[in-house]
């Protein structure tokens, strides 16, 4: 894998992402890039489902929220180190996804999409009524929780660097899966599931596996992100709007590609950030974002990367 240039491109990009704000000590840049990194993780893992297997998962945010809850619960109630807690969160959510996936992935098309929304809402309601996790008001972290890192200021840098690490891991995961037999099987399912099954692709198992795989990194990211925020509550953790935004980013960058979701996520986030903080545009930021999206979806349906590939066919080889 490391003999190809593409994985190195990911590593270099991640290093730049991590080191530029760190060495310039630009906290503002860090905060903006952190949101971009979270969105890359969400969009990139969603891509495994939508871009590869062709299953539209509207409720992907459930992994992020559930991972966040498990992590914060372990940190506050059991005093587990946040990194270990996030890891446990990732594994647990993946396991739950495997279990759920085996069930709901029997559904196809619109029915599957609806079921994923249902899962998100059901989990949210469950958490709202689950008092050990703070019920409707959620879990609040005390400032002492940041002490293992030497205070909140250092802890926030650590969280940033770890989240960037997960971003790189997400893209490498996309790359490894795409270039494996598993990935080929998924793409076959995406093209024509019945034909794939006839040709010997174990569709049910592959679908459940990819559903579970797409849960692991977002769940870990959720843990780190909500640790950084200092609070997790059901509304923010299972925010369907964010789920849909991740789909938009994916389409913007180019579904099915590896770099596309990342490009889409960064562009979308930076655009929103600029609109939000520009005084004259702040009231219109959602309007402008909406119009831009309409234009992109209307005129470049393959997303940014699809458009680049069409413009310069040679880029297909190294810009995957």
């Amino acid at each position, binding site marked *: 894998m490391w003999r190809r240039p593409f994985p190195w491109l990911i590593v270099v990009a991640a290093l730049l992402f991590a080191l530029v704000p760190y060495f310039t000590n630009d*906290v*503002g840049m*860090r*905060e*903006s890039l*952190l*949101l971009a990194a979270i969105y890359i993780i969400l969009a990139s893992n969603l891509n495994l489902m939508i871009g590869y297997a062709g299953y539209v998962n509207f409720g992907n945010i459930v992994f992020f929220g559930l991972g966040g809850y498990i992590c914060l619960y372990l940190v506050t109630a059991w005093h587990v180190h946040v990194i270990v807690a996030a890891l446990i969160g990732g594994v647990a959510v993946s396991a739950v996804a495997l279990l759920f996936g085996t069930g709901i992935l029997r559904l196809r098309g619109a029915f599957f999409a609806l079921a994923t929304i249902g899962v998100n809402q059901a989990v949210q309601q469950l958490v*709202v009524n689950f008092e050990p996790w703070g*019920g*409707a*008001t*959620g879990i*609040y*972290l*005390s*400032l*002492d929780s940041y002490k293992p890192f030497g*205070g*909140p*200021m250092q802890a*926030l840098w650590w969280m940033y660097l770890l989240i960037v690490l997960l971003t790189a891991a997400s893209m490498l995961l996309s790359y490894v899966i795409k270039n494996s037999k598993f990935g080929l099987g998924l793409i076959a399912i995406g093209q024509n599931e019945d034909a794939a099954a006839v040709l010997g692709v174990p569709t049910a198992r592959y679908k459940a596996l990819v559903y579970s795989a797409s849960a692991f990194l977002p769940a870990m990211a959720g843990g780190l992100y909500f640790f*950084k*925020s*200092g*609070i997790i*509550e*059901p*509304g*923010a953790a299972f*925010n369907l709007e*964010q789920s849909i935004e991740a789909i938009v980013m994916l389409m913007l960058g180019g579904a099915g590609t590896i770099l596309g979701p990342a490009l889409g996520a960064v562009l979308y986030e930076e655009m929103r*950030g600029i609109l*939000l*903080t520009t005084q004259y545009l*702040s*009231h219109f*930021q*959602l309007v402008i974002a909406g119009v831009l999206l309409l234009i992109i979806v209307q005129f470049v349906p393959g997303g940014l990367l699809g458009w680049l590939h069409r413009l310069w066919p040679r880029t297909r080889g190294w810009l995957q």
Partner: protein
Amino acid sequence: MKRSLYLFAAAVLFAGGPALAQNTITIGFTASQTGALNNDSTAQMRGIELWKDHVNAKGGIKAGGKSYQVKLVSYDDESQNTRVQQLYTRLITQDNAQFLISPYSSGLVATAAVISEQYGKVMITTGGALEKTYKLGNKHLFQLYSGSTQYLAGALKALMQKDPKPSIAFVYENDPFSKAVTIAAREQAKKAGVTVAVDESYAGSTTDFSPVINKVISAKATALFGGGHYADGATLARQLHEQKAGLKWVTLLVAPDSPKFAELGDAANGISVPSQWEPQVTFKPDFGPTPAAFAKEFTDKFKIAPAYHAAGGYAAGLILQHAIEQANSIDPEKVTEVLNKMDVTTFFGHTKFSDDPKSHGLQVGHEMVLAQWQKKNGKLVKEIVWPDAAKTANVIY
């Protein structure tokens, strides 16, 4: 001649120099200009803006022999805590805000506090009633509102004055704030030996309350506590009236506080609402405007009467200003010290912060009032019915 002209010009420039270079103090906050919290957050922001206009018109905040003009910097947090940390970091590091005012709502306040605290910035919180936030070890966070456990405590006391053995139905929205407030009241009621007839939560989007209301009727409840936000609260009030639930007492959160609530007509009559502040309160301020003066100037500027969110915004600025002037310095640690000891009354009421390290900054002075819609000469007006010291009319029961 020419030289003396130059000299004269130079003298004018130098003399004018210090006066031109105004001292400013930057106060940063985020407001929910879009999203679900827009209505209440906008009122809060207007309150802050009105305070800024007043301060600057009077020459600014005075500290250390200087006068500082107030400059406000604010961004839209979209009613979500996703971006709150990014924006507060920006306010502190790029806009160089010296002091902060909180966003609106408890979840956003807690998220912003992680940032304000690490930079040692004083943040006055308004619109963040949940007590949890103040039990996390923050040292520069000061809460202006009465905590969420206080919201229905007054209503319960007022009700028990009229009927020592009520049977209460708790029917509330399942959002964090409404749930925390109502559950606290339910516990207080149980402790006082009151019968809890119904205990039901509902989604904010509910439009048909008949099943719940039937439950309330069959449980023979005499009083109802609950509600959530405007849309659901107004609908619940209307359907309670239409279905003749036969309740003697109804206290709903938030919705009846809005002047719009009067549009419900007879359905609004007798419904009470706990409020952080009402324009009719009669507090005698140690400094700043009287409640009536604030209400008038707010109405003149924004063409709408202020409710408690707006008053909270103004009071946040006023308390901060008072602390800076008392500290005679813009050093955050000195201002914090003054706030720790503060014990004052403004148009907003009594303000005193807990200095116990376990609940630092929690509001312990402010008391809520209970307002009730009453029909006077065929017109609905909101009267204060509790506490006795502040009341403008007797409660209808």
